[in-house]
């Protein structure tokens, strides 16, 4: 019974905060409305007894949304929404596309004859996940690891204004780097 109540509260909350993302003027509010939406979604995941997944969504989304807000504030005009503005462009088209997508997805949910899994539910899904990562899904993890490494390198290449040649000299022969703000290791 109470699971039903919590589910519907979260469902309504997730949709409402999702709508709020496009209705508010401020980048900070938009980002945290999105975060609220994720939190509601995470609770529904907890309701179906996927404890690890639900808590992980909470953990990751909080961190990621806070980082997102840094960038939203940094790069968007008028981040606090102190001047009136709108978060949407091409309002009619966007509305049509989203309504259509919603209708299609809802239809799929109800019309497709979803198969039911014959396998028994693992006692501890997190444990099963661990086994999968180390076993059959090993390749996925390794590929993800390399992709993350590539992400770090690309990010650094693209985002840093000064590289090692600016810091250590053209021959990389300076003993301590020359930086505008001193750091903690290396000098």
């Amino acid at each position: 019974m109470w699971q039903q109540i919590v589910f519907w509260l979260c469902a309504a909350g997730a949709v409402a905060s999702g709508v709020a993302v496009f209705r508010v003027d401020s980048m900070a509010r938009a980002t945290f409305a999105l975060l609220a939406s994720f939190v509601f979604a995470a609770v529904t995941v907890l309701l179906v007894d996927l404890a690890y997944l639900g808590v992980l969504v909470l953990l990751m989304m909080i961190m990621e949304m806070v980082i997102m807000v840094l960038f939203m504030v940094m790069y968007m005009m008028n981040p606090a929404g102190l001047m009136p503005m709108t978060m949407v462009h091409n309002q009619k088209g966007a509305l049509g596309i989203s309504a259509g997508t919603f209708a299609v997805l809802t239809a799929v949910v109800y019309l497709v004859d979803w198969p039911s899994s014959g396998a028994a539910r693992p006692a501890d899904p997190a444990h099963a996940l661990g086994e999968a990562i180390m076993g059959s899904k090993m390749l996925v993890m390794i590929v993800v690891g390399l992709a993350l490494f590539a992400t770090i390198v690309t990010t650094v290449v693209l985002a840093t204004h000064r590289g090692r040649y600016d810091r250590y000299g053209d021959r990389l022969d300076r003993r301590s780097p020359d930086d505008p703000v001193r750091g903690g290791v290396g000098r």
Partner: protein
Amino acid sequence: MSMGGFGGALLVVALVAGVLGALYGGALLVRLGRTVTGTRPFLSGHDPAEHAVSRFHVRWYTLTMIFLAFDMEMVFMYPWALVVAELGTKAVIEMFVFLAVLMAGVVYAWREGALRWT
């Protein structure tokens, strides 16, 4: 209780809401006066020339991107901690090779000065 003990969390949320209500309500009862609005933020005795809420230049934004990439490892590492004892040496090697690859990325970033304020 279903939901794996998270029912307690809901109860705590309700309880903290009660505590907050009591604090704010108590403050409402004993306060000296109504809330003052429109106060200028403190700026060493000056009036602010601009609204502070602006495009804040985050000097360490590369660091946040490196963090985002690195923290994906959490997704794997928490479940991995559950099975490492059973799966043995293979699991240890696989995970720490994975982490070593990421760490190599961090060392590269350090050399490029990406861990410093620009």
